[in-house]
C-alpha cells in the first residue's frame, strides 16, 4: 500500500527539485498533448524551449524574453508577498489594467507637454496608485465584511476589463485616430514613452523595476519585521496573533503592495511594449504571474527564474503557433499543466512516499 508520510521537517532538497521535476513532467505531458494534435512533440518542445534562446532567430526572441518576463516578475513578486501571508489576490490582472489606465490617463492629460522629468514619474505614480486602489476594494471588503478576497479580486478583473473597453472607446480614445478604438500611442509621445533603454535588449524601465522588486522583496522577506510577520501569518495565523500581528492591517498591506506592483507593471507595459490603451491591451500577465509566483516557490530569486521560464513558453508558444500551427489554446493548456504538476509534486516537500505491506495487524 502506498501512503504519504509527513516529514518531520520540510525537505529543502525537494523544495528546489519540485519546480524542475514539474517542468520535466509538463514537457512529457505537453509532448503527449502535441502528439495527439498530430504534431511532432520533440519539434514543438524544441521550438518552445530551445529556439528562442539558442536557435537561429534567437537574436530576435531574446529581447522579447525581457519584455515578457518583466511584468510577470514584477506582478509575481507582489503576489508572492500576499500568498506567503495567506492573502489570495487572484485579481492582479485587474490591478494591472487599472494601473495602465490610470498611468496612461495621466500621461495623456499632459499631452503634448514635453517635460519628461515631470510627466513620466507622474505616470508611474498614477499607475501604482491605480493598482493599489483597485486592490483595496477586496482588501477593505475582506477586513470589514469578511468577504472572500479570492472571489472579489477575481471578479474585479472583469469589471476592470469593462472599464478598459470603455476607456478605449470613450474618454481615452485618440482624437486623431479616425474613430478607431484605442488611445494615442504613448510611444510616439517622448515625454511619456517607456522606451527600450538598450536597443534590441528588451530592457525597459519595467524590467528595471522588476529587478528592483526582486531585491527589495528578498530583503523584506529575509530581514524586515514586516516580511517576518508576513511569513508568520501565512505559516500560522494564531501564532501571528500571539506575536502581535494585526491580521486586518496585514491583509491590507499585502493586497496594497501586490496591487501597486501590478499597477506599475501595467503602466510600464502601456507606455512601452503595448503603447496604447486598447480593448485587447491585457494578455493575461496577471494570471500567469500566479503560476510564476508558485513556480518560483514564492521566493524572489525563484520568481525571477520562473518569470524567464514562463516568458519562454509565451515566446516559444507564439513561435510554435506561427511556424508549426499549434493552436493558441494548447499553449495555455501547457502553462496550466505546469502549475498543476508543480502543486501536485509540491506534496513531496512536506511528505514522503512510503510503500509498505498491508499485512499488519
Amino acid at each position, binding site marked *: 500500500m502506498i501512503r504519504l508520510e509527513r516529514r*518531520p*521537517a*520540510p525537505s529543502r532538497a525537494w523544495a528546489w527539485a519540485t519546480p524542475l521535476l514539474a517542468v520535466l513532467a509538463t514537457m512529457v505531458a505537453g509532448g503527449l498533448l502535441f502528439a495527439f494534435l498530430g504534431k511532432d512533440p520533440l519539434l514543438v518542445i524544441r521550438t518552445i524551449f530551445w529556439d528562442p534562446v539558442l536557435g537561429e532567430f534567437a537574436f530576435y526572441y531574446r529581447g522579447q524574453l525581457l519584455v515578457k518576463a518583466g511584468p510577470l516578475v514584477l506582478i509575481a513578486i507582489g503576489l508572492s508577498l500576499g500568498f506567503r501571508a495567506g492573502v489570495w489576490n487572484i485579481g492582479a490582472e485587474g490591478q494591472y489594467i487599472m494601473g495602465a489606465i490610470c498611468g496612461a490617463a495621466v500621461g495623456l492629460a499632459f499631452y503634448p507637454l514635453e517635460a519628461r522629468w515631470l510627466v513620466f514619474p507622474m505616470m508611474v505614480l498614477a499607475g501604482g496608485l491605480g493598482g493599489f486602489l483597485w486592490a483595496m476594494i477586496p482588501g477593505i471588503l475582506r477586513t470589514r465584511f469578511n468577504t472572500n478576497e479570492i472571489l472579489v479580486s477575481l471578479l474585479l478583473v472583469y469589471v476592470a476589463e469593462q472599464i478598459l473597453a470603455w476607456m478605449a472607446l470613450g474618454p481615452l480614445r485618440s482624437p486623431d485616430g479616425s474613430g478607431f478604438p484605442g488611445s494615442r500611442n504613448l510611444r510616439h509621445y517622448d515625454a511619456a514613452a517607456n522606451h527600450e533603454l538598450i536597443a534590441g535588449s528588451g530592457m525597459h524601465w519595467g524590467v528595471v523595476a522588476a529587478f528592483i522588486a526582486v531585491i527589495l522583496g528578498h530583503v523584506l522577506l529575509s*530581514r*524586515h*519585521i*514586516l516580511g*517576518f510577520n508576513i*511569513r*508568520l501569518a501565512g*505559516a*500560522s495565523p*494564531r*501564532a*501571528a*496573533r*500571539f*506575536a*502581535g500581528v*494585526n491580521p486586518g492591517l496585514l491583509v491590507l498591506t499585502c493586497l496594497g503592495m501586490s496591487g501597486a506592483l501590478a499597477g506599475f507593471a501595467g503602466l510600464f507595459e502601456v507606455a512601452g511594449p503595448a503603447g496604447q490603451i486598447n480593448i485587447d491591451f491585457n494578455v493575461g500577465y496577471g494570471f500567469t504571474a500566479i503560476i510564476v509566483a508558485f513556480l518560483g516557490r514564492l521566493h524572489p530569486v525563484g520568481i525571477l527564474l520562473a518569470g524567464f521560464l514562463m516568458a519562454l513558453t509565451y515566446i516559444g508558444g507564439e513561435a510554435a503557433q506561427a511556424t508549426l500551427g499549434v493552436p493558441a489554446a494548447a499553449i495555455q493548456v501547457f502553462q496550466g499543466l505546469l502549475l498543476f504538476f508543480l502543486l501536485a509534486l509540491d506534496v513531496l516537500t512536506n511528505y514522503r512516499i512510503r510503500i509498505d505491506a498491508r499485512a499488519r495487524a
Partner: protein
Amino acid sequence: MAGRVSTPLLEVQGLRKAYPGVVANDDVSFSARRGEVHALLGENGAGKSTLVKTVYGLLRPDDGRMQLDGRVYAPASPHDARQAGVAMVFQHFSLFEALDVAENVALGMEVPPPMRELATRIRDVSETYGLPLDPNRLVGTLSAGERQRVEIIRCLLQDPQVLIMDEPTSVLTPQEVAILFETLKRLRAEGKLILYISHKLEEIRALCDWATILRHGKVTGSCDPRQKSARELAETMVGSELALPAARTQDPGEVALSIAGLTAASGAAFGTELKDISLEVRRGEILGIGGVAGNGQDELLAAFSGESRSAPDSILLGDIPIGALGPNERRALGVLAAPEERLGHATAPDMSLIENAALSGRRRMGMVSRGFVNWGKARAHAERVIEQFDVRVPAAGSVARSLSGGNLQKFVIGREILQRPDVLVVNQPTWGLDAAAAAAIRQSLLDLAGQGAAVIVISQDLDELMEISTRFSALNEGRLSKPRDTAGLTLEEIGLMLGGAHDLEIAQGASRPDRAVGPGESAP
C-alpha cells in the same frame, strides 16, 4: 451491584491505546447493558474520547478486545461500527449550513430513501423521541441544540443498539439539556445502551445508571452515580492520591497584576465567554487556576496575552491600565504569556527556533531596530533558551515541529522566562509531557516566582497545581472562583470549586438565579 443483572451488550476488556509519549488507554475494561445510560466520567485527557473512538471504529486498539451482544466486535471503521449497530454523536457537528435538515441527514446515509419519505421518517422519529425538528428547515438557521438533534436523528434512523454521546451538553442551553435528557430516557426505556461522556458530575448523577470513571487512561472505579455524592465522584475522578500541600511560608509581595470585573466574549465558535473575572496576583506567588478544559482557559490566556483586548482599566499592571494594549506593548511592560497549544499558537510549526524566538521576543529583547530584524540577537536568544532549559535539539535552526512535545514546551516556557517577565501566564504548561520534562518546567516556574515574578498557571492537572501554586482558584463556565490559599484546601473544597455546584443548576435546567458567590463558598 443491584440492578446490574442482565447480560452485557457491550463488553470491553483490557483495551490499550498508546500515542507517542502518552498512553491514552491502559488496560481499560468495562461492560454495559441494554437499557442503560452508562457514563464515562473523567477529566480532560483521562482517555474518554480515545475509548469511545475505539468503540466507534475510528481508532484501532493496540491491545485488548471488545464484544458486542456476545459476539467478537472489532470494527475496522465507523462504517463497520454502524453496521454492527453502534452510532455516535460528536461534540462538534458535521453539517452543511446551506442544506436543509433532510438533505443533511440524507448525506450521511449509505442508501438515502426519496426525500419525501425521508422527511416523513424524520418527522416520525422526532415525534417518537420528543426531539422537535422540522425536516425542511435550513441547518444554518438552527440553534446548537437543534443541530445536535439533527445529528441524533441521523443516528436514530439507523436504529442503533448503542448510541455514543460525546459531551453532548457542552453547547446546549439548560432548556435544551432538559429536552435531550427526556429523549435519552426514552431511548433507555426502549432497551438501547447510551454511552455518555461527560465531566459534569451533577448531570451524570441526574441521568446515568452506571458510571465508569477514568483517570490518566485507567479505570479508577465504577459505581452507580445516583448512590454517590458529587464530592465522592469528584474524588474518584481527580484521584484520591492527590497530595495536598502542607502550609507554605511565603511573604506576599506587592500586587503585580489585577483584573476587575472582566467580561469578554470568545472569538471562537463554541468558545466560552469570560464572565466577571476578578483576581489579583502578587509578586513571588504562583496563582493556580484549575478547571476542566473548555471552561474559558483559552479565553483567559488571550485576555492576559493581549490577543483579546478589553477596557483599558479592566486589567492593571501595578497601576498602569493595560487592558487595551496589544501583545507586544504588554510584553514591553513585562507581561508575558505561554499558550497551551504549543504548535500553531505558541510557535509556528514550520519555522525555526530562531524565528520562533523572535515571535515573542522581538520587542522585549530588542531584536528589531528601524524595522529590521537582528537575526543574530534572535539566534542568541534561542541558543540561550536551548542551553539553559536543556532543549534537546540538533540546532537552533531546526523547525519547531521537529521537536518532541517536551522539548518544545521547554523552549516555549524558557523563551518567556529568559525575557525576565514581571508577570508570566502559562496555560497547561506540562500537558502531555513525560515526568522529567514536567518536573523541569514546574521547577523553572517555581524559580521564576522565587525571583519575584508573579506567575499564573492555568492547568487541568490538579496534582500540578497543588504542587506549585500558592493560591488556587477554578474556572467554571467562564467564571473564576475566588482564589484561596492552596495550603489547607480539602479535597472536598477543590471538588466543589471545580464546578459540581454550578453544573447542578445547568443539569436540572433550574431557573434559580445565578449565585454571585464562587462555588467554593457555597460548600454545605
